[in-house]
């Protein structure tokens, strides 16, 4: 190695952005002769050397698989790193990908290459110096690769900077081209790449043009510049700037949003006095384009609190107008209206208000689904002429703003669902800019729309990788392979043989992934107890057998990683996206009748009379299920309508049922809630829906056979939770359902007050009792829906149940509110929930079956895992819900052959607002917003009494009261079909 050293001198200020003494820092900089030069291009005509501007704005082009032979200079990478960490990250990934070698992507540390390096001249600006460094590197490569060939050289500088390109050509004799010129050089057969390159080139040009144009013309529509990191820090020190997550308002995402602030430690005393003492979190409302200042739902932002309380906004009470009424006619003139909120009046409640001053971190998804808005009149010609035109992309997700796209394919993309990635949001533009990623299919097609909802919810849809499938046992695997094998087979260690027990399972019809089964056996009377009655055995052994998934899915294996990424099986209408490969889900783990299966069993010894649990034992086992019943079949046996062929079946079922009912009674006495959510009831066949375990008590399933399974699952889950807590007091994976704060019940109480119903919400028990009382009251008996409506509203007041690591909170907070259980977890569905897999592993570890994996016994790693599982669980549920809504819509559409047609239906008012009402359609299980006609008459809103009265027609909307609505499916602005409700 030959090195030359010289000293680089830099001026560096220390401290956090505060001006301090400037210091001189000397650093060594070694120049080498042994650095490899990228070889001459073989895959393409030229070796491209992009500059940082191209990298920052046209990365999607450089990422394109068809673009080969590119050199990434150290100078360029450094510049990119300083300017945009996300882009830098992406380039790093690109260069690290296995693809990079095949595509001949190189990096070249030009600043450490003796031949390529140049020193900075006195008085040279940093930008000029960078450009010169890049040119020098290109020149060096050109000389090394193909001698001095000048314009015929194969090393090509790719830059959009005209001045730099001119210097490269004139002063250094290099080849310098722009993106548009590159598009012409791309080999003929790759039209997609060519199109992309051209588009990227044009968008860079336009952005530089519009950026300069913005200074004079469009200054009025610009929003304030984002603050620098140092300014934000100073703001935080002043106590008025808070950091939080931006969330767009659900109904008016363009006009307002809130910034959720979790950490109030930096809030100054004055600001704290305004917000109110003793608050843990606060939501700061931001209103209007200036207030939102280019934040997009999910971004981490800094928000400055408004100091004058009289400038604070009110919580929105009006429904926004339906957005399909041509308001996007004037996009570029979206008014800077901070006062779109109703004029302030002193009496109303004000909410903390502020304005976003900086976006700390963009949390953009990799792609957003939506469609293009139809072109405006003027633009149609341009589209026809084939020039690149700007199109506006309307995302499906209402919380995401519309996106400016620049595409030549806009005519082809009309009527398609497309995916788009966001690039940036300039200060002078009303909308962010993005680029087209891919087309998903025609709008309105069930498959396309299903794909959309999966992408929007971040559901993993790709098939299992080969590495994961390699972890599976052969498809012919049987338990006897393991038992028959040599002594001490891994799967059989410490396993108890329970194949002699009469095990049965009860599931919905068509269920193939059976993850739980039960058995029930009378224990022989205990002789050592003095006063027992020999004719009546007092104890019974109940076995809850859960599929032993962890026997097949080893911790840390490729299969485990993929299951973890999926986190949960996603149930869509008529479709199921499984967490584990089908071989496990439907065969090896599923506790099918007539097969030996591996199980994790909870053996409970219970008193027959009182259903008290006397002892609990956890054991890995082998079982042999005798019967798989459907709920209906089980119910028939319990009702005595059917007599089963096998005698033990009836006896077991009846005994289990008797125990379950006692358990249930006890649970309800403790304050367990029965809630309801509107469920879209559809006759969709082959929907493997199981609405049983865990806290799915939100759904009504009234038959005894439903309760039977549910009760034992709850019992087993509780028992496992207690066991885990003794072994891992810090890291047990538990599930808690925090008690909702009293103010959260306000919407429910308001509605109930208006309807003249008194509800107690102090505890879950009081709430359950008062809801039951409503059902039993004369009003409740006269109107069976009243009870359901109140329960639906009560469900809305609940917090969400979450998985957590036991070390996260105090034991008092382990409480599960809905189930009224002091400690709870999920153990019973390991085939379809990853949390249960974790719990299985922890239980196996504390029983000594497996070694404790560090990740599962350390509080911090466990909590991270829990948060991941929570997030996956939520998105799986959302995807399921969206799928139901989609199919409901398709179903209604089928009933309405043409656009004008509509269906009338009975509805119940859930909540009354100033210009409409939220209604529930019991017949369909749908919920929607009803807008009253404000043009024809004036409406009087009485929030206290919960009424909205029309002054002319005397129509009254009253909370909980019935009304008739007209249903119509309309195509919204984003070509999203929506249900529109109109008053009759």
């Amino acid at each position, binding site marked *: *190695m030959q*090195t030359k*050293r010289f*000293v680089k001198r830099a001026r*560096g200020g*220390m401290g956090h952005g505060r001006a301090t*003494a400037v*210091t*001189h*820092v*000397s*650093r*060594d*900089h*070694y*120049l*080498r002769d042994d*650095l*490899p030069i990228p070889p001459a291009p073989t895959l393409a005509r030229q070796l491209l050397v992009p500059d940082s501007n191209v990298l920052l704005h046209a990365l999607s082009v450089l990422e394109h698989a068809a673009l080969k032979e590119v050199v990434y200079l*150290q100078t360029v*990478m*450094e510049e990119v*790193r*300083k300017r945009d*960490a996300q882009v*830098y990250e992406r380039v*790093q990934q690109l*260069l*690290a990908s296995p693809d990079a070698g095949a595509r001949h992507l190189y*990096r*070249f*540390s030009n*600043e*450490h290459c003796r031949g390529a390096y140049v020193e900075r001249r006195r008085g040279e600006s940093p930008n000029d110096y960078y450009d010169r460094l890049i040119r020098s590197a290109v020149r060096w490569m050109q000389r090394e690769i193909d001698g001095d060939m000048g314009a015929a050289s194969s090393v090509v500088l790719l830059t959009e900077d005209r001045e730099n390109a001119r210097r490269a050509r004139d002063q250094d004799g290099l080849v310098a081209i722009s993106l548009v010129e590159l598009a012409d050089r791309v080999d003929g057969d790759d039209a997609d790449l060519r199109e992309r390159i051209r588009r990227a080139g044009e968008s860079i040009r336009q952005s530089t043009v519009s950026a300069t144009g913005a200074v004079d013309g469009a200054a009025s529509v610009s929003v304030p510049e984002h603050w620098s990191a140092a300014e934000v820090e100073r703001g935080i020190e002043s106590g008025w700037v808070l950091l939080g997550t931006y969330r767009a308002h659900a109904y008016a995402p363009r006009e307002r949003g809130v910034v959720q602030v979790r950490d109030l430690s930096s809030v100054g005393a004055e600001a704290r006095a305004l917000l109110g003492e003793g608050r843990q979190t606060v939501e700061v409302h931001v209103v209007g384009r200036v207030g939102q200042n280019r934040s997009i739902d999910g971004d981490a932002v800094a928000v400055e609190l408004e100091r004058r309380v009289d400038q604070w906004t009110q919580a929105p009470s009006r429904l926004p107008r339906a957005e399909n009424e041509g308001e996007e006619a004037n996009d570029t003139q979206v008014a800077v209206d901070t006062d779109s909120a109703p004029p302030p009046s002193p009496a109303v409640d004000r909410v903390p208000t502020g304005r976003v001053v900086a976006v700390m971190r963009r949390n953009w998804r990799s792609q957003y689904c939506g469609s293009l808005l139809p072109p405006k009149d003027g633009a149609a010609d341009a589209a026809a002429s084939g020039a690149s035109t700007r199109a506006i992309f309307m995302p499906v997700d209402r919380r995401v703003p519309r996106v400016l796209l620049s595409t030549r394919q806009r005519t082809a993309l009309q009527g398609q669902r497309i995916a788009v990635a966001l690039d940036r949001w300039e200060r002078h533009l009303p909308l962010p800019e993005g680029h087209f990623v891919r087309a998903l299919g025609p709008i309105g097609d069930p498959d396309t729309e299903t794909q959309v909802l999966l992408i929007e919810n971040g559901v993993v849809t790709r098939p299992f990788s080969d590495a994961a499938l390699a972890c599976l046992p052969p498809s012919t695997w049987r338990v006897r392979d393991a038992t028959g094998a040599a002594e001490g087979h891994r799967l059989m260690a410490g396993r108890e043989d329970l194949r002699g027990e009469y095990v049965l399972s009860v599931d919905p019809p068509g269920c193939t992934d059976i993850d739980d089964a039960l058995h029930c056996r009378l224990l022989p009377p205990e002789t050592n107890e003095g006063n027992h009655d020999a004719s009546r055995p007092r104890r019974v052994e109940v076995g809850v057998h859960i599929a032993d998934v962890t026997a097949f899915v080893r911790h840390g294996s490729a299969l485990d990683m993929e299951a973890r990424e999926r986190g949960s099986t996603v149930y869509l209408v008529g479709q199921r996206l499984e967490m584990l490969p089908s071989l496990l889900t439907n065969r090896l783990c599923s506790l099918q009748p007539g097969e030996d299966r591996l199980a994790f069993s909870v053996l409970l010894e219970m008193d027959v009379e009182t259903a008290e649990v006397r002892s609990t034992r956890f054991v890995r086992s082998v079982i042999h299920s005798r019967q798989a019943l459907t709920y209906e079949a089980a119910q028939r046996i319990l009702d005595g309508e059917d007599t089963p062929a096998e005698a033990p079946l009836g006896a077991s079922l009846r005994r289990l049922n008797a125990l379950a009912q006692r358990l249930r009674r006890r649970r309800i006495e403790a304050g367990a809630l029965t809630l309801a959510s509107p469920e879209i009831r559809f006759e969709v066949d082959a929907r493997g829906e199981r609405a049983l375990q865990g806290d799915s008590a939100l759904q009504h399933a009234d038959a005894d056979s439903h309760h039977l399974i549910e009760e034992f699952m709850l019992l087993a889950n509780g028992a496992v939770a207690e066991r885990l807590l003794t072994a891992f007091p810090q890291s047990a994976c538990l599930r808690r359902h925090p008690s909702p704060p009293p103010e959260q019940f306000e919407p429910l109480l308001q509605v109930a007050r208006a309807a003249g119903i008194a509800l107690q919400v102090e505890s879950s028990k009081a709430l359950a009792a008062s809801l039951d009382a409503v059902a039993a009251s004369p009003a409740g008996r006269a109107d069976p829906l009243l009870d359901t409506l109140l329960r639906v509203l009560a469900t809305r007041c609940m917090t969400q149940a979450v998985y957590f690591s036991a070390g996260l909170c105090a034991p008092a907070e382990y409480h599960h509110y809905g189930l009224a259980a002091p400690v709870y977890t999920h153990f019973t569905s390991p085939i379809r929930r990853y949390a249960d897999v974790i719990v299985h592993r922890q239980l196996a570890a504390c029983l000594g079956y497996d070694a404790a*994996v*560090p*990740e599962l*016994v*350390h509080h*911090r*790693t466990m909590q991270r895992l829990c948060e991941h599982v929570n997030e996956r669980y939520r998105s799986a549920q959302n995807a399921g819900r969206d799928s139901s809504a989609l199919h409901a819509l398709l179903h209604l559409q089928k009933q309405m052959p043409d656009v004008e047609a509509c269906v009338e239906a009975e509805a119940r008012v859930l909540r009354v607002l100033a210009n409409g009402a939220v209604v529930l359609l019991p017949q369909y299980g749908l919920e929607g917003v009803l807008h009253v006609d404000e043009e024809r008459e004036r409406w009087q809103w009485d929030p206290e009494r919960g009424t909205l009265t029309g002054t002319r027609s005397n129509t009254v909307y009253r909370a909980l009261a019935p009304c008739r609505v007209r249903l119509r499916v309309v195509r919204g602005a984003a070509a999203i079909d929506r249900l529109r409700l109109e008053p009759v």
Partner: protein
Amino acid sequence: MGVPELLSGDGLRLDGRREGEVRRLTVELGTVSGADGSAYVEQGQTRVLVAVYGPLEPPGGGGSVYQSLLAASTAAALESCASAGRTPRRPGRRVHTMEIEENDEILDEGECAGVPEKPLRVLPPATAMGRVRCEYSVASFASAPASARAFRAQRRRQQQRHRAAAAAGDVSAPPDSTAGSASRPSKFERQSREAAARIRQVFEGVILSGGDARSGGTSRLMPPHAVVDVFVQVLQSDGGELAVAINAASLALVHAGVPMRGLPVACSATALPHQRKLVPAVDPSAWEMRQASLANTAMGGVPQVTVVTLPSEADDRMPLLYVDYQAATSLPEQPGIPPTRATGDLFEQVAHLAASVGCPQLHRVMHTAAVAHLGQELARREWSATAAFIAAVQ
């Protein structure tokens, strides 16, 4: 703005070196004219000046040592160089050191306990125990940002003390009273003392003092009562100060003609976070260390290791003398050790790289300088016979 990439895709560090390459080393002997021996070493931007006085009569005792000293020291210095050089060593004077391979076991023990907490000493018996005195000081301008910060911090503390005193009614205490600091040494003072102690330990084991039975005739030893004063002045610190100071002290002792077993060579090393792994690298600069710990803050920074070896060219290995760990990890022990966490295994790799790759590079430069100096010295004293011997050695 994130941390720059500490190892680029083509394997270069921030300043253009590869992992195994040390910074450029420049040495100069005899810089301080008044001292018995002195050396100035510049390694990258780290600059250290060492002055050695002695061997001296210990304060308050012993007879005159100077009669025997001149002959003895020159011969011994020659010896020390020869043992470091290519001369086959005579069995009687074989220096007892442990080889790297043996040390691996010791490091393995360290691994069992996680990160070793104490410096690992593989020193031969300290023949010059208590015969080396060392003072280590860092110039106030050595690292501008750090000292400026420290200065401000000290000012703040003083002001606080003053305010507290004023509040307690004791207005007589002057605002810049340093009375408090005398009782508790500052961080700088502690670090300097520590460095001085390390240097002393190393040279206590290397300097041949009277009483070592295995060293042959007394004429080749430092007189039994004599002491050596080593003054280390760090003029500019840019990483690896301790290692550079040891190297400078080695050369200064050679210059002073103090008999030693060999020429100790020190090298620092660290592990740079790169793609979720820690990659060992020798001789990090201060900037590199700072960026590396920033990049690895989650794991509590990066480890820093200083090894001292006693090279011998008889067998090509680098006998290890001393390993000083500065485990930058401040995290509590976790059962799940993430891959970026510095483990005993990693420490071993880092120390091994420093000893087997870093030290030889430094040794080449130092050895040449030492031999050149001795050649000049001998020529001046017209010990032609020995000079011829040196020439033959070279």
